[in-house]
């Protein structure tokens, strides 16, 4: 590696203008049509900005809480209003700020760091963003009418079901449930992007460290959110049509919700923390001017955290009276997860040791993060110890702990990144003086606010109380915390002032102003819509430190794809492990479809809050239509076409099967869906464990085994043609595929009909008992999947009939086959469980 000092001495010349064709295909549309832009540079900035807006909105709620609690007998809010405010504060910060802004950061930054021009599914990013913006505003707006959710951000039944008849919690279930779907969309985008669209030579062991973190996080979202979405669906069904999943009086169990919620809720903490740790691992080396020490160790730590954090969920349920040994298992996993955190902290400290720290504002935030996060991690180990948790649980100690971990572990790195990447996004430098004031006010204000809460909790103050007696010895600490909150707020205002002022008025930044080594700093400033002028070949973790002339070489088009000779937006698809060039991905141009589909989706969920189900259904169909049009316009490439990407390499523009990004997207979707289905099976088994007998006493109706067998046979038969779809596709047998799809649909519809008949004839009333409700869900869930598969199959057939010359059997047929087989597997498993399991148990 060239010494860092040499690299610093070298300043690349200003970039020559891009070739006109390349510049024009990536140019943003003007005026209102700018809303049609799907490029990550545009969407990413809006996305991050929206996240920051929700930080401010959530912060205002936090200030209301602290003002109200500054003294006992606060009169700013009524009890009812306080409960809405704290619920919406938690909901906003978790679902509308922390998770989305981390996804936003990765949508904006990932392509630059990977050396791609854009992520593989720009329209999905755009759709996800618009859904988030509209859904978030919808959920948040409830507070303006004092109908915000008021059962806590965790929404425990029966308080959130039987005892909350108003529409408050529907805002949560439908608003947040909807945003979770957009989170899932970004998972597909980011995972496939990291696996498939990297600079040449960026093999797995040279992946930028932030990408590892984002990859792990995205997969965690993929496993953690679906069970919560399932839980949302079950709860909304219980609220809307009275199927008693969580109603103890009818055999349900409120604890079931807690399992589903915390199976999401604990990994959630790491979903928020890991990308932030990735930002720290990216920023810190720049400010010590040395590579990160222990790259492999940090990767290990991120991956291990991803797994271990799924073994923690019950530590939110230590006081629910679960068996002692079960608590111990989760206590042990909660301790184990501290080790990867320790490894990361020591890697960061070791990196600081090897270099010469430059105490600029981003690095101050990194140091502030280390201080607060280590403290929060240590209290985290304390609450992992079961007996201590019995005291600390649901007290202000936990409020202190979680804010140390989340603000320290996520907001500080985020602020570091906002300052650090300001030049890359705006081309201007932040103001050092304002930045320092902002940092110290934020850092001291934070500790003054939250440190006293540790003591408050141990002195017996529970969480989520709108008031407290004056004689408990809590007054002074509460007042201190409130004054600290004011200071923290001032710090954040100063921070944002710096950010906004510098964005428009800061001094122009020179290229690579922090002298960083990672690839994103090789672009011109601000980073152009085009991304890289040519897609580089790299040989290490810090390409610019390896070769300080790299930016210049990129500017001069010395690498791959220096122009856009066919007038398409393109990026390079490379091999997952070795990152050799494999294919040109032709990307979509600006389109209204994602925005229109998001509007329709918003209406679909929004009117459902007010129980206007027919309007909701209509809006849903309109949204589906937009998405089908969007799909219709995809797939225009010929499998036979190959293009020259420069340096004497020719690659195809199309691929199918496991090499293609579309196949991976479908596989990811199926994997994520399987955790939702897994959650449903868990729910069924869980209700079995809490029932005295099985089927539960008093339920005489039974499912007809013969009818079930016929259903299973039909459904299974329908998967046969689906299995041959890929093979027929390989041989381009168009008519055979049409025949297979038709057979699949016919058998599937017959089987689906029979499964409904099975339920109908059984006489099992879903409102009667949690068991009967779950039997219905076990069948309805795969049935809805088969229905989606039928839409996909019909789409494939119609497209073939209407548009045969341009249409090649490919993604649509294969993905339909994949989806169908997965749905069939679900249905068979469901039938086996509901029909035969009662006998076995």
């Amino acid at each position: 590696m060239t010494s860092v000092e040499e690299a610093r001495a070298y300043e690349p010349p200003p970039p020559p203008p891009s070739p006109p064709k390349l510049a024009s295909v990536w140019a943003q549309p003007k005026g209102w049509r700018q809303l049609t832009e799907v490029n990550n540079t545009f969407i990413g900035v809006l996305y991050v900005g929206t996240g920051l807006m929700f930080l401010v909105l959530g912060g205002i709620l936090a200030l209301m809480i602290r003002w109200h609690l500054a003294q006992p007998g606060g009169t700013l809010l009524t009890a009812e209003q306080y409960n809405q405010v704290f619920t919406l504060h938690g909901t906003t910060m978790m679902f509308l700020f922390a998770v989305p802004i981390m996804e936003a950061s990765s949508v904006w930054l990932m392509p630059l760091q990977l050396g791609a021009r854009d992520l593989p599914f720009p329209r999905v990013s755009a759709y996800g963003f618009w859904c988030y913006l509209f859904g978030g505003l919808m959920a948040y707006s409830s507070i303006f009418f004092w109908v915000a959710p008021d059962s806590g951000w965790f929404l425990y039944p029966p308080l959130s079901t039987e005892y909350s008849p108003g529409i408050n919690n529907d805002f949560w279930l439908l608003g947040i449930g909807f945003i979770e779907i957009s989170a899932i969309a970004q998972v597909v985008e980011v995972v496939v992007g990291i696996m498939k669209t990297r600079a040449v030579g960026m093999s797995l062991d040279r992946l930028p460290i932030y990408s590892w973190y984002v990859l792990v996080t995205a997969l965690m979202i993929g496993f953690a959110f679906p069970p919560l979405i399932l839980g949302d669906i079950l709860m909304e069904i219980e609220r809307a049509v009275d199927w008693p999943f969580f109603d103890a009086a009818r055999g349900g169990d409120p604890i079931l919700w807690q399992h589903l919620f915390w199976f999401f809720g604990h990994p959630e903490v790491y979903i928020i923390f890991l990308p932030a740790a990735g930002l720290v691992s990216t920023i810190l080396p720049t400010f010590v001017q040395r590579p990160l020490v222990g790259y492999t160790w940090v990767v290990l730590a991120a991956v291990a955290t991803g797994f271990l954090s799924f073994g923690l969920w019950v530590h939110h349920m230590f006081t629910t009276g679960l068996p002692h040994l079960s608590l111990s298992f989760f206590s042990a996993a909660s301790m184990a997860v501290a080790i990867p955190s320790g490894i990361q902290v020591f890697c960061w400290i070791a990196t600081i040791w090897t270099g010469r720290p430059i105490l600029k504002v981003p690095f101050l935030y990194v140091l502030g993060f280390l201080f607060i996060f280590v403290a929060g991690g240590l209290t985290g180990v304390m609450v992992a110890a079961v007996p201590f948790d019995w005291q600390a649980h649901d007290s202000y100690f936990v409020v202190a702990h979680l804010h140390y971990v989340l603000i320290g572990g996520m907001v500080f790195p985020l602020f570091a990144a906002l300052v650090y990447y300001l030049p890359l996004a705006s081309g201007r430098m932040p103001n050092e003086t304002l930045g320092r004031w902002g940092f110290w006010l934020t850092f001291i204000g934070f500790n003054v606010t939250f440190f006293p809460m540790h003591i408050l909790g141990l002195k017996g103050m529970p969480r989520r109380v709108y008031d407290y007696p004056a004689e408990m010895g809590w007054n002074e600490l509460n007042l201190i915390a409130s004054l600290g909150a004011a200071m923290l707020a001032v710090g954040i205002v100063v921070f944002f002032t710096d950010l906004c002022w510098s964005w428009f008025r800061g001094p122009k930044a020179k290229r690579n102003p922090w002298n960083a080594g990672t690839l994103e700093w090789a672009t011109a400033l601000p980073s152009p819509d085009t991304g890289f002028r040519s897609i580089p070949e790299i040989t290490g973790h810090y390409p610019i430190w390896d070769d300080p002339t790299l930016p210049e070489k990129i500017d001069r088009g010395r690498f791959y794809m220096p122009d856009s000779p066919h007038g398409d937006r393109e990026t390079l698809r490379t091999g997952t492990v070795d990152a050799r060039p494999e294919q040109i991905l032709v990307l979509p141009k600006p389109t209204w479809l994602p925005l229109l589909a998001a509007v329709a989706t918003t209406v679909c969920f929004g009117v459902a809050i007010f129980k206007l189900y027919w309007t909701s259904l209509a809006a849903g169909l309109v949204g589906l239509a937009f998405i089908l049009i969007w799909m219709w316009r995809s797939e225009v490439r010929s499998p036979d076409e190959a293009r020259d990407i420069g340096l004497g390499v020719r690659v195809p523009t199309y691929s199918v099967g496991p090499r293609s990004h579309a196949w991976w997207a479908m596989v990811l979707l199926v994997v994520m869906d399987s955790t939702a289905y897994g959650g449903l099976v868990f729910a069924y088994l869980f209700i079995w464990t809490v029932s005295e007998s099985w089927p539960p006493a008093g339920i005489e109706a039974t499912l007809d085994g013969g009818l079930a067998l016929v259903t299973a046979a039909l459904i299974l038969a329908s998967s046969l043609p689906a299995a041959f779809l890929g093979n027929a596709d390989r041989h381009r047998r168009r008519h055979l595929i049409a025949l297979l799809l038709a057979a699949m649909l016919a058998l599937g519809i017959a089987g689906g009909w029979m499964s409904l008949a099975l339920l109908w004839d059984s006489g099992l009333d879903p409102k009667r008992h949690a068991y009967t409700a779950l039997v219905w869900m076990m069948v309805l869930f795969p049935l809805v999947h088969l229905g989606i598969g039928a839409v996909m199959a019909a789409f494939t057939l119609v497209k073939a009939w209407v548009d045969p010359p341009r249409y090649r059997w490919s993604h649509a047929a294969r993905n339909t086959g994949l989806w169908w087989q997965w749905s069939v597997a679900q249905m068979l498993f469901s039938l086996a469980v509901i029909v035969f399991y009662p006998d076995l148990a």
Partner: protein
Amino acid sequence: MANPLAADNPISIVLAPIVWSVYFLFVYVLNSVACTKGFVGLTLFGFGIVPATVVIATLVTLAIMVWLAGLAWSRFAPVRDTDDHVHSADPELARLARRRFMALAGLLQAGLHILATLYVGLPALLVPEC
């Protein structure tokens, strides 16, 4: 997917955590069902059925982890000193560095999850089941 144990298959990085996840789920479900369905009182080799099974499961898991660690070590040892090649333009040297990365990651995963398995298994000897 090709052979998950192959040296250049990235799956090798996550084998240990996958084994741990299966183990964890097994002991948790076992204890929950034993407590709710009332067979916690049964004995196996003179021990309660739950602690005995947990101990066996822990030992089996540890054996798999140790084996994975050994496999990773056998791959890591020959290329221990090739870390610098991560910055090499030569594809062959770069491949060595990649092997080193995967072997080391696999080794550390196995080591870390040996600890995690011990943490989970130990309390079974100390804590009452229900």
